[in-house]
């Protein structure tokens, strides 16, 4: 599984396919407080939608430099750095 619940948080690991969007949404509804995506190498657009709309706080910087460069500035707070091209 590329997604799992760990206490208060949601852990994303590896490539998160479209199915993870639903799971993430469910965790968010069940009270998950943050998403740790430091192990994530890619995220399906549907998952991005959930991150954008739910406003879940993010922890860590994604493992993929592409995600770190382009998605971190797009998403709210808790990101550790702002990227520049």
């Amino acid at each position, binding site marked *: 599984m590329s997604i799992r619940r760990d206490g208060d948080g949601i852990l994303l690991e590896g490539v998160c396919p479209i199915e993870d969007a639903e799971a993430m949404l469910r965790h968010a509804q069940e009270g998950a407080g943050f998403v740790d995506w430091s192990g994530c190498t890619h995220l399906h657009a549907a998952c991005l939608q959930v991150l954008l709309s739910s406003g879940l706080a993010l922890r860590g910087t994604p493992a993929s430099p592409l995600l770190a460069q382009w998605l971190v*500035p797009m998403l709210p707070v808790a990101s550790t750095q702002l990227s520049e091209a």
Partner: protein
Amino acid sequence: MNELLASFVTEARDLLAEAAEDLLALERTPDDEAAINRLFRSVHTLKGSSGLFDVAPLTRILHAAEDMFQAVREQGVALSAEMVDVALRTLDQTGLWIDALERNQTLPDTAAAASQTLAATLRAAFGSVATGGAAATAASPDTAPEAGAAAELLACFDATLRRVLSRESGSFRLITYEPDEACFFKGEDPLHLALQIPGMAALASTARSPWQTPDALDPFMCNLRFHALSRAGHDTLEALFRYVPEQVTILDIPAAALLHAIPAGAAPATPAANPLTGELLSAQLALLDAPAPEAERAGRWAAAADVARHVLQADGHNAAAASVAAAHAEAEAACLPGRLRSAIADVLANLAAVVPALAAAPAMPGRDAQARPAAEPPERTAPRTLRIDQEKIDQMMNLVGELIVAKNSLPFLARRAEQQFGQRELGREIQDQYSVIDRIAQELQGSVMAVRMMPMGQVFQRFPRLVRDLARKLGKQVELVIEGEQTEADKNVIETLFDPLLHMVRNCLDHAVEPPAERIALGKPETAIVKLAARQDSDQVVIEIIDDGRGLDPEKLKRKAYERGLIDEDRMAAMSDHEARMLIFAAGFSTAATISDVSGRGVGMDVVRNAVEKAGGRVALSSELGRGTTVRLNLPLSMAVTRVMTVTLHERLFGIPMDLIRETVRVPAADILRIKSSEAFLLRDRVVPLLRLASLLEMTEPEAAGDDVAVLVVRVGGQTIGLGITAFGEGMEVILKPLAGMLAALGGYAGTALLGDGRVLLVLDLKELIAT
């Protein structure tokens, strides 16, 4: 209606009124920089607030108007009369939609189509200005339209982009990629595709429609839109998006133009400080701070977070909106409201912090106007004025009225204590207490009346627009001068005034003011001056409508009245010039040769007179042929309290409005002249008709046979009449209540008032009584 919408409606009306005023000011003095800035700001604020509601057509025309005004502002172009026409029409339409919103909470179905037509008309009218404006903001003319369109898209990019761009030269491609809603089901991953964009300099995403709450979100419906800047060429990019060409637009933009466009549009980096946003956020903080029962707590957090998020999104602070949402989620999870509270407080602080920076920054296009409203001290959050439903004030007024009536019964009580129970001391004490309560009641009445007082400007402010439109329609040149708009009067009086003034101003422009050519031939200045002036004169307001037009021709008026059968030949010959001029107030009189849609239906001036007299006022007129006319209205400051004189008629008490009464006389029965069935008497060598109140009221009691008759000399409808009664009473101030319900149809009574001893006083409407 939801409170947010209600406050939007009120705010919108104020802003629209201001905008119309500034537009007219701008037409008069095209280089009035303050006016164009205010105008732009009003429309901008209105557009911003409208984004909070589902009123896309409204937002669209405001947006179009905002663009136009911005272009005008940047280029200092003078507005033509046609531009002002279209702009005013836009404001009118907005006003109508605001009315509809207030009534039905939605816009009419036709709004979308109407909005498109109007926006197009607006753009067409301002066409030359607007395209020129875009060219001025862009670096090279041939890419100008793209840069204009890009500014909006660029708003979503991060501020860091500016730093990136400042190091670049050459040109960029601005890509907008809007994946199909159902693309996930086709196995597409738009994010994956977007991340493949070669030579990417920036990537941003926006929501196509506002994000749903997690409960309502369908994660498999794509609501994303991507915006990217790339250094790669057209061909490379088109190759990447070859499977979804219809979902992608690619624009060429030089880096320099981009740099120029970003500060104007980069809302997230430098938020437009919309004062409403700050207010709404403060309100959410207050909500969070207020103590809440356990059961309601979660609901309150959610409500506060939702409002804050929507407000911020509507204002373009997407990042801030997301951080509030995130904080809410954290707060819920950890059961710590502090997290959400501090997030909103932070955003609010940031908004305030941007302000000095905005104010200090060198004037950027589109910036200075936004900085000004926000430049007020940020701590000023609680407004000093209240908007109160008029009903509440009326209710207060009624209670004050009852208090006055109740208080008036104390002297009766004092007298009874003294006379009936022989308690002199007690009687005196009651009397003392009465004077204390009397003083307080008077002051209370004074304060409530003061609350109801409104400046005359409320009525006058509608006239500049009206005069302008009319003058244009009639091909005349008119300058409207307004004086004394600070003069205050009771709200009811002010409201009664609008229609009469409207009739008079219309008449004035239509009949009195000459066309420019005629004025020049007469040696008058080409532009006529119409003056509306108000001032306070003891307990009355005096309003004058003064023009320098043709003046009234008594001979012409007499002939006209004769032709219309309003007067006969003898009367025509005997009439003084002044009487002849007053003929314009006669019912069915109109001198306009052709009936226009401006005035001239022969209803105008007598309607004016009736309305003013109904409000307890008088109309006077003076005119000089060829030099102009002055109409003067005298109105009571307040209609809440009426002075009446009580009269007795066969043991019954009636009230007669004091302002009609000229004098009281006792006429010896022998001096009463009988002319056929009518009676009259001589008053200082003038024959005055005598009417018996008893017969006017169709009372059947026999006439009291006495030596003399008590006669009240009154002036009704311009005639002096003697009114025979049994005995005079005293003058008093009463709160007049109109007859209601089944009694409302009863003619001849102005209303009722309650007396101190509990009796009901019927106040007569003499004009109606005598006419019947």
